[in-house]
């Protein structure tokens, strides 16, 4: 490529970055559901005709690595039958989805009169509900994927610009909040089309050949950056493992095992030794697994490196079918975007600790969700409340203490919880306490972040039905290089009647909370890094003065 093209490639890279940002903004502005417009649980990306990811916006790290599988699946199914004006959908984890609630839409970009799409814009977004046995579609009782929701294999929602309203109606009828679903879906499609139009304009300005060769340059540049970083890591064959507590159906201590080979400027991650697939919904589809490995590595290299197909070239992933990280089709998977996604990333990061000690992090707290369903006595209406509070702490690194209260690894601190005052005004709930949990962080030269303690009274007049679905009650956020583990989660119900305590398991269906009972949720702290004896005495004294660490 002639040298002057580097500057054009630089300009086009900026343009691609901003097109993605604009897709994200269009989505934020138009989405209906709180999970999208407030918690931003969606991702946008752009691909070329060969299904190579060429740009993505900084949304949900886990989504991004799985998108190419989904696009390939769609492009192969409809090979030779994709036309301008088409909009395609998919959510099935066995066709490149993460889990069923993550619905993906695809808009092809046609240039001139070519028969095949030259580019694609893609938008993956977490739906509030996708059907199945449990409201919100997290069903700990599920033993196969059909119990988790509606499976959408590659379909066309628009065919040459014409809405297939029969298809839309069929899908919308299979989810619980039909109008929310339709609102969110049109926001997703609208955002992807914003991207497609801006893409067309870019190609119009520069010509297809220039944009195509600029894309090659952009991908190569990311590859070079990642390889340069990995090239500084110590060569060797390393091993790391991480465990889930259980699958909710009797299998405990489910292991993800990674053998990681660093050779020159490339990495091979072999997950074949992971445990067999399990009955409950903590299996991870192949696409979700590869994606988890990719964000683990993205966390370790320079955060500024653009995440695209080039950045993933130095990473090879090996799995064995029949394991928890590559189940045979139809195993349930809904929990996998948190767990075992986090365990997969952790096994890789722990393995690489000796290779790049200045880049790895100690363990982050795990996801523990709980949903309450009951009747609000102030309005007489039913309510469903999803807890985003009581977040765990992040793990420490060589450079810094961990952040308190920012949650789980797969979201990287991007998931917001709602104001307590608004919660109290809207729901029959009373928050006695929502504060950092003393002594929860793992000690170390750098300590972990603190988890949060939530003490919340349920002020209904009728019993409330609760669904806990989480991880990390037994397996603690790990310490590194002599740093201590963080404390694990502890979730309890304190009965108003007699003060007795009901400890919650990680996965249960239908725990009844009586009026006046208190939920005491104590979230895990992050793991520590390095020898605690080397901790700066001033920092230690400050933690004691702050009342966060016992003297």
């Amino acid at each position, binding site marked *: 490529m002639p040298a002057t093209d580097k500057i054009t490639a630089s300009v086009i890279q900026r343009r691609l970055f901003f097109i993605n940002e604009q897709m994200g903004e269009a989505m934020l502005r138009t989405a209906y559901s709180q999970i999208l417009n407030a918690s931003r649980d969606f991702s946008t990306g752009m691909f070329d005709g060969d299904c190579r990811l060429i740009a993505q916006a900084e949304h949900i790290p886990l989504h991004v690595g799985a998108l190419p599988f989904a696009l390939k699946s769609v492009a192969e199914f409809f090979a030779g039958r994709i036309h301008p004006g088409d909009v395609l959908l998919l959510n099935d984890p066995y066709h490149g989805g993460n889990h069923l609630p993550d619905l993906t839409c695809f808009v092809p970009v046609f240039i001139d009169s070519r028969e095949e799409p030259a580019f694609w814009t893609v938008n993956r977004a977490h739906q509030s509900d996708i059907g199945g046995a449990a409201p919100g579609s997290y069903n700990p009782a599920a033993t196969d994927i059909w119990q988790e929701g509606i499976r959408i294999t590659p379909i066309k929602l628009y065919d040459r610009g014409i*809405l297939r309203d029969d298809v839309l109606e069929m899908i919308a009828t299979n989810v619980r909040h039909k109008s929310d679903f339709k609102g969110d879906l049109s926001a997703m499609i609208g955002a992807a089309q914003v991207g497609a139009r801006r893409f067309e304009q870019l190609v119009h300005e520069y010509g297809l050949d220039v944009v195509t060769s600029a894309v090659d340059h952009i991908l190569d540049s990311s590859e070079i950056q990642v390889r340069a970083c990995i090239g500084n890591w110590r060569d060797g064959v390393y091993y790391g493992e991480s465990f889930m507590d259980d699958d909710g159906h009797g299998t405990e201590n489910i292991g993800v095992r990674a053998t990681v080979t660093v050779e020159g400027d490339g990495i091979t991650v072999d997950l074949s030794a992971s445990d067999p697939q399990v009955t409950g919904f903590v299996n991870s589809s192949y696409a979700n697994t590869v994606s988890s490995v990719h964000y683990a590595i993205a966390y370790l290299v320079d955060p500024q490196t653009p995440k695209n197909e080039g950045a993933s070239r130095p990473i090879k992933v090996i799995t064995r079918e029949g394991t928890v990280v590559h189940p045979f089709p139809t195993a349930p998977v809904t929990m996998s975007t948190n767990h075992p996604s986090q365990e997969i990333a952790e096994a890789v990061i722990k393995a690489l600790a000796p290779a790049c000690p200045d880049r790895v992090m100690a363990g982050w707290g795990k996801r523990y969700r709980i949903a309450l369903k009951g009747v609000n006595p102030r309005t007489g209406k039913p309510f469903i409340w999803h807890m985003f509070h009581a977040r765990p702490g992040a793990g420490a690194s060589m450079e810094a203490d961990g952040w308190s209260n920012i949650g789980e690894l797969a979201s990287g601190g991007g998931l917001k919880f709602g104001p307590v005052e608004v919660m109290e005004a809207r729901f029959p709930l009373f928050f*006695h306490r929502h*504060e950092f949990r003393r002594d929860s962080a793992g000690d170390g030269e750098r300590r972990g972040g603190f988890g949060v303690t939530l003490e919340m009274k349920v002020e209904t007049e009728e019993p409330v039905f609760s669904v806990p679905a989480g991880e990390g009650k037994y397996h603690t956020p790990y310490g590194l290089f002599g740093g201590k583990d963080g404390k694990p989660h502890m979730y309890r119900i304190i009965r108003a009647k007699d003060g007795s305590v009901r400890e919650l398991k990680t996965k249960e269906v239908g725990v009844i909370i009586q009026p006046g009972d208190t939920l005491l949720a104590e979230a895990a702290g992050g793991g520590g890094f390095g020898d605690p004896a080397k901790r700066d005495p001033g920092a230690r004294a400050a933690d004691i003065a702050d009342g966060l660490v016992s003297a």
Partner: protein
Amino acid sequence: MYRIGIDIGGTFTDLAAVDESGAVSIAKHPTTPADQSIGLLEGLSVLAAELELSRGELLAQTALIIHGTTVATNALLERKGARVGMLVTDGFRDVIEQREGLKPERYNVRLPPAPVLVPRALRLPVEERIRFDGSVETPLNEQSVRAGIDALKHAGVQAVAVCCAHSYANPANERRIGELLAEEMPGVHTSLSCVVLPQIKEFERFSTTVVNAFIAPVLSGYMKRLQDRLAQDGYEGEVLIMQSHGGLATIEDSVKLGAGCVLSGPAGGIAGACYAADITGVRDLITFDMGGTSSDIALIRDGEPCYSDDKTVAGTKVALPSIDIHSIGAGGGSVARVEIGGLLHVGPESAGSDPGPACYARNGERATTTDANVVLGYYDAANFLDGKISFDGAGARHVTEGIAAELDVEVIDAAAGIIRVINTQMAEGIRLVAVRAGADPRDFTLLSFGGAAGLHVTAIARMLNISRVIIPRSASVLSAWGMLATNLRYDYVRTAVNDVRSIDADLVRTLFLEMELEGRERIARSGNLIKRTDLVRSLDMRYGEQIFEISVPLKDIDLDAGDLIEQVIAAFHARHEELYSYSIPEQEVVLVNLRLSVVGVMNAMPAELPVTAAYELQPKSQRRVYLDEWADVPVYNLDVLGAGTRVSGPAVIESRTTTILLLADDHATVTGTGWLDIEVGQVAGSDARDSSHSGARLKVVGTAGG
């Protein structure tokens, strides 16, 4: 009598005076960071000299000084505010550090935790608890308050933020704690959350209250010094302070609500833009203020700025209403680098003002935007930046050669490449701001100010397909000058969360009336400056399950109407439709906040004087500049171009403070007041109207059916 506008920026203090005939005089003086009031007074001397007066004479003939200050912003940025303690409801002491569970830079997992303004050891729990409806769950335990106060005294805090849960619904406990503080810690500043921001959402309210306590002592010290210095010089007029919301407040009120001043400086620029919209009749503007480190962008629609009540300043949430100004990390000092993969990046890192660009001859070693502009020949080497900064053209070339070597191109191509990349960033940054607001940039005119903007603005307009650019004559002092055309303004908020159908219309009327009386009383104190008082009412509302409210203006709604609530509901659906292109009439609608702005409209400022009779169009020289190839283009002196003059590109137009580059097919016309009104040559093609900016959705999918 004069009115004087004073805008203190990081480098320069800009001053503008206008007399009763409308004649504007301007002055510029270096800012004195240690105590800005020193530079301000010196600047007044320079301004007086322009008018052939002494400073005392000028002040004696001045009725009003309007001042935009960065004292509050800098205190926050540099973490140089008061030592603050918090008294906070037991169970809620970590709210300001929890930050709603968010961390910036998602992929940067080794980022150190952000520091907080009040360490946990000084966030002391108080036993009390109000419920969401204002009822008392736990009465205030004064013993716990006194214990907290003792600890804060011992720690030597200079200010206290009092933050109780649901205090917007019942402020009694906060007020009582305030009384105890006044008894026990007289002289220590106290900020109550129910006073600073009486609205629901604890993180926003607590954080804003802490910022207020952090800033107040610093701001009050500065204001006192300023008043003293002005009084020493015999000034007897009024001093009003520019607020983040674009209006003005007295010194007394500004010190009480210091958190409302954190965007005082940039708000002045937007005030200037609004004034520009007024006098040019161009009502839809995108302001583009290009500085050294960053560029500020704001939208003016129908002459009014856009507001936000969700600003994060220096990593800290300040939830008071403020003009929505977006900063992008691209400016004249942005540093160019070639990353290891071979691509060129410019910014966000900046060479700042020290060492600054290599061409500043202060040993800058990295190529910047400004250096690239030098290599391309755009600047007057003999009179660089009005001679205020020494010039090293060879230095600029040398650092740009470094970039050229890494890219393996000629130095001139590297320079042109740097400009292409930075222009792309600024143009796309502007587009993103427009998309966020649901606007299409092509419907706007670019208003360009800031000394560095003129060389980039026509290229950026092309990238955005914007056909018109306006450059005010006093572009570099637009802020100071715009402040002169601003109004007094006080903002109020009350929270009343409920399904709107179960809210009594009389409650709405009573809350608005309460706020109105309070506002009218404050405005009355500056009665001599005020022509009339306007009221701007709005409601924050949302659909039941959403957590973001939208602002619903009540402009056309009569509060006394019998069907007030029905009208409000209809207005909400209409507004939602307008913003998001859908509404859900069957869904429950929730009212959250009532807002009132009480605006004291000031006596009109005389319009700017027309420029003197037309001069002949005469280029002062020719300059060899690079525009895809080297070309000799005419250079005009902006200060002597007569009204109605038309200059066609390629050309350079210069004044003491700015350099403007016209590209081929650009046509600039000098307006009656000496401004440049530029018709931008269009990019070939790509003029198809796309609806990507309006957030258009597929109606057919819509939300019909349930």
